[in-house]
């Protein structure tokens, strides 16, 4: 498999790297170390820049006005865009734009007019409400939010947990059980305006993550028109599952950026910091950590690019995407941990971004499917014979 970049990819990577180093990193020097947003003026200025560069709305399909990047190029950009303090969960503070909820590309034209197009224009925000207090790794069986039909409406009751962005969203994609089937065939996806009576954002769920906090939702006798069903009645799990598979490659790629930046910082520190009469870089204990970092980074990068290339060529990529997600999230956690060790005391202070990456990378081993679920997916494919 050839992992060399073509001319266009190299140009995009170089441009993104310069943008992060010259536009994002200097602003972070002035921000609170746990900040999750830029000043509005900076946000507007940088968004104007990315629009003029033709990079706005990276994940929007070309037919909807996006730049039409393939998965490999998008993964390469994700690696670059996450190389700053807030980069893991808020790469470049969103100035490259979002795609909205990818599921809405499958919506009816009426639904697109109401939710998708305003989202692509930056006028509306959506959130994805799948996980419940009863569990997130096995959503098909864990969903207890219930919906029953009453005339032309559905009435929903239940709760959701760890939902990002619900407090600022104009609408939510909510999954609810709508039949007696206890598994994947009894779940329906609803698009619900967040000002609908009965839609409550009850609290912020505080975690290790400094930005993009999660929330807990509660639905009480929430009445939703039947026209708000996305896709087929009881066909919601396939919609949710599609997102979970699709997300793994860029999610994995985003883990690698902080590891690369941490390694650069550790090398710089090791060359310039003396102890016991010589630079840290001359000590074998440090050298081996630097080497182990490099092995982890390259391993993760190769796995991500392999999965991306398979996706781009139309091949099955589920196993590769699961492997990439598992390896990138775990390898990057190890790299940042070693880099903190190399830095010593200053490594755990908020003077450096290492402590934030260390905290936030811990979540990456759970988010979008924990390592154990990735292994489960791979085991099914390998033992089931679909992986050759």
């Amino acid at each position, binding site marked *: 498999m050839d992992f060399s970049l073509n001319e266009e990819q190299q140009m995009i990577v170089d441009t993104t790297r310069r943008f992060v180093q010259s536009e994002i990193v200097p602003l972070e020097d002035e921000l*609170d*170390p*746990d*900040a*999750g*947003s830029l000043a*509005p003026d900076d946000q507007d200025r940088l968004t104007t820049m990315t629009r003029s560069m033709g990079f706005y709305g990276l994940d929007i399909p070309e037919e909807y006005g996006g730049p039409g990047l393939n998965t490999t190029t998008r993964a390469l950009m994700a690696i670059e865009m996450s190389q700053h303090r807030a980069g893991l969960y808020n790469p470049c503070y969103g100035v490259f734009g979002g795609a909205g909820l990818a599921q809405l590309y499958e919506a009816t034209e009426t639904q697109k007019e109401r939710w998708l197009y305003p989202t692509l224009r930056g006028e509306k925000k959506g959130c994805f409400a799948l996980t419940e207090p009863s569990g997130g790794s096995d959503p098909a069986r864990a969903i207890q939010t219930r919906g029953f039909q009453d005339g032309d409406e559905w009435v929903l009751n239940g709760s959701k947990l760890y939902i990002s962005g*619900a*407090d*600022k969203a104009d609408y939510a994609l909510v999954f609810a059980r709508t039949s007696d089937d206890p598994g994947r065939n009894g779940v329906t996806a609803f698009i619900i305006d*967040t000002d609908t009576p009965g839609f*409550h*954002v*009850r*609290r*912020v769920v*505080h*975690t290790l*993550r*400094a*930005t993009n*906090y999660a929330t807990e939702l509660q639905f009480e006798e929430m009445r939703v028109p039947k026209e708000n069903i996305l896709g087929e009645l009881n066909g919601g799990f396939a919609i949710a599952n599609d997102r979970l598979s699709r997300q793994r490659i860029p999610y994995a790629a985003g883990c690698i950026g902080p590891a690369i930046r941490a390694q650069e910082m550790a090398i710089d520190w090791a060359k310039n910091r003396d102890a016991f009469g010589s630079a840290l870089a001359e000590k074998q204990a440090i050298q081996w950590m630097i080497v182990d970092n490099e092995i982890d980074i390259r391993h993760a990068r190769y796995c991500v690019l392999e999965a991306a290339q398979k996706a781009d060529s139309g091949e099955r990529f589920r196993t590769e995407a699961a492997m990439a997600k598992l390896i990138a999230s775990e390898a990057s956690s190890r790299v940042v941990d070693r880099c903190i060790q190399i830095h010593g005391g200053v490594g755990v202070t*908020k*003077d450096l971004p290492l402590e934030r990456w260390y905290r936030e990378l811990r979540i990456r081993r759970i988010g979008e499917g924990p390592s154990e679920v990735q292994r489960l997916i791979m085991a099914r494919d390998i033992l089931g014979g679909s992986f050759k």
Partner: protein
Amino acid sequence: MGIRLDKPWERLDSDSVSSLQAQLGVYQVADDDGNVLSVGYAGAKHPFGIRSALEHEIRLHGKKAMLFRYEFTSNYRSRWDELLMLHLHDHGQLPDHQRDEEGRVGRLSPN
């Protein structure tokens, strides 16, 4: 666990502030009637954590600032946003000098 910062108010003066530990956290500052003047946080940019942040509040509000209550937390950013949202929910708007934050923070409908 309640999400409101509903600890008893303490007198805000230089003695009470200097006795606090220099930690990260969130706080409310109020006038003598308990009307909240500021919902703030002490982050890593504050040299002495919550002490520095409250000293700034005293300079900002002068003699109007009479009371305070606080909570130490390393999750000061998300907790601060939560307290702003609660204030917005309870009062319909944020304290005057924080109105600019209304466009940034989200909306909560707590129990």
